[in-house]
């Protein structure tokens, strides 16, 4: 699965991106979520996708993960054009994903969720069975290393806190990511310590030669680890930069669409600029 079989190419050329999207578009019914977006993921590099809420970042991720097929443009893995009809195919090509809505089954125990879809087995023939002990141990370990100390890997994942669930999803992707690791806002629900751990993991994955796609709203996080930055705006690409070509400040400004966090800081420490009472608009403007 890892070696492409396109005519005329025997192996991915050095420098061939692991994943390359060109001019990709996607509509949900009459909603055009994505138009003409291109992106490259290289081995040993972290590509950050940045953008406002609703810009289409998660949609892009879902195309890479094989959850949605793309409507237009091309999608190549190791230089070979593909069209995934299920996430399984992307997984089999070594692309592991953390979805923003996490993709966990609330009523199932943590360890079953961890290995869902890629369960290790032992035994043979009709006696082939889940390697439960290993599954439990690995889950506990992988989470502990992320700074999450679970009371009980047998508790339904739906009873974990938001951040704990997030960590399970990340640990799972890290565990199974063979070639490309795709993370949709992995640190959103995480504490300072856990965020740090996740960024460490991301960096470790990069250093192990994986290609990483990272979505985040935190420019500090992005600038800390990113090698290239793709900016989305209302479904289209509004920029693509290498780390060398941009400063943290410029990046933050681009992400905030012109307004600046410093300015905001300033504003918030003064008497309020917002004159509105908090319980809503005045009656005239209502309807």
């Amino acid at each position, binding site marked *: 699965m890892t070696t492409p079989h396109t005519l005329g190419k025997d192996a991915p050329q050095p420098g061939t991106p692991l994943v390359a999207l060109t001019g990709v578009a996607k509509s949900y019914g009459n909603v055009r979520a994505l138009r003409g977006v291109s992106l490259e993921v290289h081995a040993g590099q972290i590509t950050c996708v940045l953008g406002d809420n609703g810009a289409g970042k998660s949609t892009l991720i879902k195309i890479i*993960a094989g*959850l949605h097929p793309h409507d237009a443009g091309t999608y190549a893995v190791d230089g070979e054009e593909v069209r995934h009809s*299920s*996430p*399984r195919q992307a*997984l089999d090509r070594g692309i592991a*994903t953390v*979805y923003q*809505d*996490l*993709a*966990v*089954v*609330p*009523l*199932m125990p943590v360890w*079953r969720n961890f*290995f*869902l*879809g*890629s*369960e290790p*087995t032992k035994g043979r023939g009709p006696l*082939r*069975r*889940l390697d*439960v002990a290993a599954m439990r141990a690995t889950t506990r*370990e992988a989470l*502990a*290393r992320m*700074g999450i*100390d679970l*009371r*009980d890997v047998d508790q339904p994942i739906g009873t974990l806190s938001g951040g704990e669930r997030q960590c399970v999803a990340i640990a*799972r992707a890290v565990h199974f990511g063979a070639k490309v690791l795709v993370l949709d806002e992995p640190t959103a629900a995480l504490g300072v*310590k856990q965020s740090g*751990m996740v960024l460490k993991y991301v960096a470790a994955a990069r250093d192990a030669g994986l290609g990483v796609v990272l979505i985040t709203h935190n420019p500090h996080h992005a600038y800390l680890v990113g090698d290239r930055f793709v900016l989305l705006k209302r479904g289209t690409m509004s920029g693509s930069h290498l780390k060398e070509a941009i400063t943290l400040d410029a990046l933050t400004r681009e992400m905030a669409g012109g307004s600046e966090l410093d300015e905001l800081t300033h504003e918030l420490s003064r008497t309020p600029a917002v004159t509105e009472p908090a319980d809503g608009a005045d009656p005239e403007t209502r309807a």
Partner: protein
Amino acid sequence: MTGLAPLLDPGAAAGADERLSPRSAARRLLGRPELGAVVGAVAVFVFFAVAADPFLHWSSFGTVLYASSTIGIMAVPVALLMIGGEFDLSAGVMVTSSALISSMFSYQMTADTWVGVGVSLLVTLAFGAFNGIMLVRTKLPSFIITLGTFLMLTGLNLGLTKLISGTVATKSIGDMEGFPAARDVFASHWTIGSVDLQVTIAWWLGLVAVATWVLLRTRAGNWIFAAGGNAEAARAVGVPVARTKVGLYMAVAFCAWISGQHLLFSFDVVQSGEGVGNEFLYIIAAVIGGCLMTGGYGSAIGSAVGAFIFGMTSKGIVYAQWNPDWFKFFLGAMLLLATLLNAWVRRRAEATA
């Protein structure tokens, strides 16, 4: 690994966690879904043991077990299907279809009954596959799809039987080759002391054991829970949800085949109108046993306990010789009380565990 260990919270390695209240083994046991239902079963048993004298005779026990097993055999795959998030309204008539096919094929082709049994297996599995494939292809709710198959099979059973046999029942195949052997497999019984144990009880227990193993210890089981608990998430992490669901429908078909063969070989002649409405008994057994209607939760053992509660209740009322006009009333009240007790026990166990 070692490089990260110091980051671990110091409390982690220690076995006991200060955030957990101590919890006895007995309490843990009570927390299991099926063992909640067991309390309901025990209560029903004790009730009828007191209310109905003949209920405690060994021979009665055989009758109750037989009644439970005929529901239980189908309740197992129906429970798995419900855990997988789907329904099968065609399960009841499919049993009859399977019996009819077997009987009519053997008779019309003048074939050894085993040939009919084999053909019936194939055709019944095809029905199951049809249900499953229609479901995953059209993405319609399973209620609608299997309602369609239910009505169509009901019509087919009657229409084809009349077309072929000329009456609403099949012809007797009791004198055909292979019949005695097939009867031994599907409809024999052993007499142990004064208890008459039907072979269906063995089938039932076997199926429960296999289903429990599959659910808890195989990949397929993991996929079943996931498909019912959150199909979108399951698909996203690479679970073959469509394949799992088709497989579940085929499991229902397989058990329908077993039940159908039992019907045929114990009564020799099959009435084409049979089976309608039984699908609900199977669902009832699964739900009493703790399966969630919405999928993602339940157990095969629970379905067996549910079938047993249903069998005890429906036969217990007969043993108690209550006014038969009120049969359904008592049945409903007992089922409700058993389930309430079960839910209450479970909630208590969870709250104080």
